[in-house]
């Protein structure tokens, strides 16, 4: 599912020549939780295959999340119908709703709030119509809990393991995150998120290979590929992985919908933009070990730098 559209449309994640962890969220210009692009049909097919082959890996929920799941699903369906009327429609007659996906030629009628009227839980249902992964964080006792999620394209983490965790527990493995007080500051920011004012941020990493499904459950398969990166194959083989993450407050249940749209582009293609190439080279060269190690780049950073130097 590698990027084949024009580079202008690629979500370039960097601002400065030095990268550090930060709360780099910005208010959204175009407030929509999900976006369709030319990879839609292909990625939905892959998502549904993963959901069918590995249901426990790709969808998890706690029983008390159902109401918030409905609220999240309603938001996504309404936004899809509003932003892409040629593809989606949502008709409401009281609690009797009909959602239509014309691209996939699918129509689903259901009773809003009645989970038995769907084949899947609400978040799992709506997630099968969008390219994004959908995470639901519920707020109580001054904290945020990961109480439901549909996750097919994780960047090396396990939804099944993280289910029910608090925000800071989830981020415990990130070196320096706690020590710099970032976990508490970002949590405070999220707890104050307001309905109607959504935020977004971009996250990035490098990967050896181009698979979208880099789940922790399959890390033993794809992680090994890091050993095979060389200066000569880096351009084709190494990919930048960008996550566009969006945050929406759901006012009725006071929970947060967190959507993740993952974009993958080969280093070679990325470097067609000379300014991106220059800036990424500076960032990577300067990147401290605690970040390279956590992002899993440590083993082949040298090969990528050598490749970039050759191109400059």
């Amino acid at each position: 599912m590698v990027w084949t559209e024009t580079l202008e449309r690629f979500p370039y994640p960097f601002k400065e020549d030095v990268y550090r962890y930060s709360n780099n969220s910005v208010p959204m210009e175009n407030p929509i939780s999900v976006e369709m692009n030319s990879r839609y049909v292909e990625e939905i097919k892959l998502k549904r295959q993963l959901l069918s082959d590995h249901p426990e890996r790709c969808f998890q929920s706690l029983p008390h999340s159902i109401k918030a799941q409905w609220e999240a699903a309603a938001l996504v369906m309404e936004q899809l119908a509003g932003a892409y009327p040629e593809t989606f429609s949502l008709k409401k007659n009281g609690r009797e709703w009909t959602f239509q996906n014309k691209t996939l030629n699918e129509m689903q009628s259901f009773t809003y709030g009645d989970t038995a009227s769907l084949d899947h839980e609400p978040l799992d249902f709506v997630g099968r119509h969008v390219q994004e992964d959908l995470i639901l964080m519920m707020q109580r006792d001054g904290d945020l809990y990961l109480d439901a999620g549909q996750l097919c394209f994780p960047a090396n983490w396990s939804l099944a393991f993280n289910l029910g965790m608090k925000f800071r527990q989830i981020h415990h493995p990130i070196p320096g995150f706690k020590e710099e007080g970032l976990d508490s500051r970002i949590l405070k920011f999220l707890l104050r998120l307001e309905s109607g004012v959504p935020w977004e941020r971009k996250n990035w990493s490098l990967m050896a290979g181009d698979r979208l499904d880099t789940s922790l459950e399959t890390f033993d398969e794809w992680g090994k590929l890091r050993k095979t990166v060389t200066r000569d194959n880096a351009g084709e083989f190494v990919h930048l992985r960008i996550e566009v993450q969006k945050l929406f407050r759901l006012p009725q249940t006071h929970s947060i919908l967190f959507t993740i749209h993952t974009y993958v582009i080969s280093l070679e293609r990325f470097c067609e933009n000379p300014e991106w190439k220059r800036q990424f080279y500076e960032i990577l060269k300067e990147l401290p070990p605690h970040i390279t190690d956590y992002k899993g780049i440590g083993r082949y950073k040298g090969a990528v730098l050598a490749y970039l130097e050759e191109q400059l």
Partner: protein
Amino acid sequence: MKKVRKYIIIADEKGLELLRPLFRHSMTVEMLSFNEELADQLARQKIGTYLYAALPWQQLAQVRKWAEDAGFSDEEAEYMGYGEKEQHVYCCRCHAVGKDTVKCGECGLLLELSDHYSSLHDAYLAYPVL
């Protein structure tokens, strides 16, 4: 009338020793013991009650679960364990929870134990050895 916070203590003899430094004479304290009625007793407490539990790790995990089911939040409870702690390991590949920190007993994956803990699974995450 001045409202007085109620404190509950669940502890055995050794646990009481651990808790002693935390207490003042002026506190309103009720002692409960670890038995089958405890879950119900916890569920009957009023909002605002504070819980101290000091027990062997395994009993403590059970008390914590009952207390959380009864609605005690982390701000309303303190848990102190002692003795041998059984460590559970969560295999990242097959999700099995076991005790072996080197190899998953279920799928055979060679494991590298981390300090990432899940209270839902009561286990530490183990990554594959690459």
